[in-house]
């Protein structure tokens, strides 16, 4: 299955705003570097309920939410028919950016909960710039790394405090397991910058 891809039109490129460097994903990328990076960028507009990508899709893009809101859902078990909403993502948040490091299947599902506009970074075009060792591609990669490192620190801290540390003494209780699962869901929501 392939994820949502916008038409490659001048209109979708013109919709990419000029002030992207205010967002963490594009921090430090300005002037001629941003002009080069624009080759990778288009805008995507989704209506409420429209899918951005599904669990298992081959990841071909990273996204930045400009307006509107996305729901980020995690599949439960095999089969892919039941999902748990782990976050709602609003303007300024990025999603799917690990695809810029190493493309692979999506582990989550994302769809618009209201009319939503996003900037899409095309992985193939980005990978081409990266292969050329272009500074714009590497600054973007560094920004993705910064987000990833921050999330990794939070996840490791959570795992140490909530899972490994407490599990031995508390997990015999059904109530404790339920509380732990609730904390894990709240944590994931905060981690992805959502409002739950």
């Amino acid at each position, binding site marked *: 299955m392939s994820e949502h891809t916008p038409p490659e039109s001048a209109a979708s490129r013109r919709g990419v705003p000029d002030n992207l460097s205010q967002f963490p994903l594009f921090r430090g990328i300005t002037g001629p570097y941003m002009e080069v990076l624009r080759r990778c960028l288009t805008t995507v507009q989704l209506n409420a*309920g429209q*899918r951005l990508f599904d669990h298992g899709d081959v990841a071909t893009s990273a996204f930045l939410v400009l307006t509107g809101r996305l729901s980020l*859902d*995690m599949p*439960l*078990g095999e089969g*892919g*028919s*039941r*999902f*748990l*909403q*782990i976050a709602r993502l609003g303007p300024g948040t990025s999603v799917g950016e*690990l695809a810029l*490091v*190493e493309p692979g299947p999506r*582990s989550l599902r994302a*769809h618009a909960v209201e009319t939503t506009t996003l900037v899409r970074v095309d992985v193939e075009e980005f990978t081409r710039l990266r292969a050329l*060792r272009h*500074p714009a591609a*590497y600054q973007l*990669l*560094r920004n*993705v*790394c*910064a987000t*990833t*490192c*921050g*999330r*990794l*620190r939070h*996840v*490791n801290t*959570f*795992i*140490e405090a909530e*899972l490994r540390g407490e599990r031995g003494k508390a997990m015999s209780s059904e109530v404790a*397991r*339920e509380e*732990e*699962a*609730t904390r*894990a*869901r709240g*944590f*994931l929501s905060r981690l992805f910058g959502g409002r739950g």
Partner: protein
Amino acid sequence: MNVEPLLGLPICEGLNRDEVEVLARTMDVVACIPHQRVFARGSEATACFFVLSGEVEITVPGRGGRPQRIAMLGPGALIGEVALIDGGVRSADGVAGPDGAHLARLDRDAFDQVFRAGNRFAYKLLDVIASDVTAKLRVALGEVAAVAASQAPLIAPRSGDA
């Protein structure tokens, strides 16, 4: 530091001598006696290290606060590389092995300098760090997601979902 020890590192494969020399000018060699602390968990992370010789033991507090070894890293290994990206504090302790260790230290400021100059080593190092932290995040998220899903209230399938 002298360029020679760096030329043998896996991270420098494919780089020419001039590129590695630029790097060598920004790095220092740290000689550690046996069991000397290289960095402490909770301390500010301002540099990464390449193991030139000897070993470094990486530990985290285990049950009862006793150090629990999570890795023993030998020549060629890269340690504490997240420091180059986001600073923060060390998540583990690093101690030289029983025979001591020689390490090449790269400070974050020096990395920033060679990165801004477009040095190929800096880009290659970033490639390695990006792959490493992405893989680690995917594994760690999988662990939390499994717990989150274990007692989860469900979202009904949306119309049109398979």
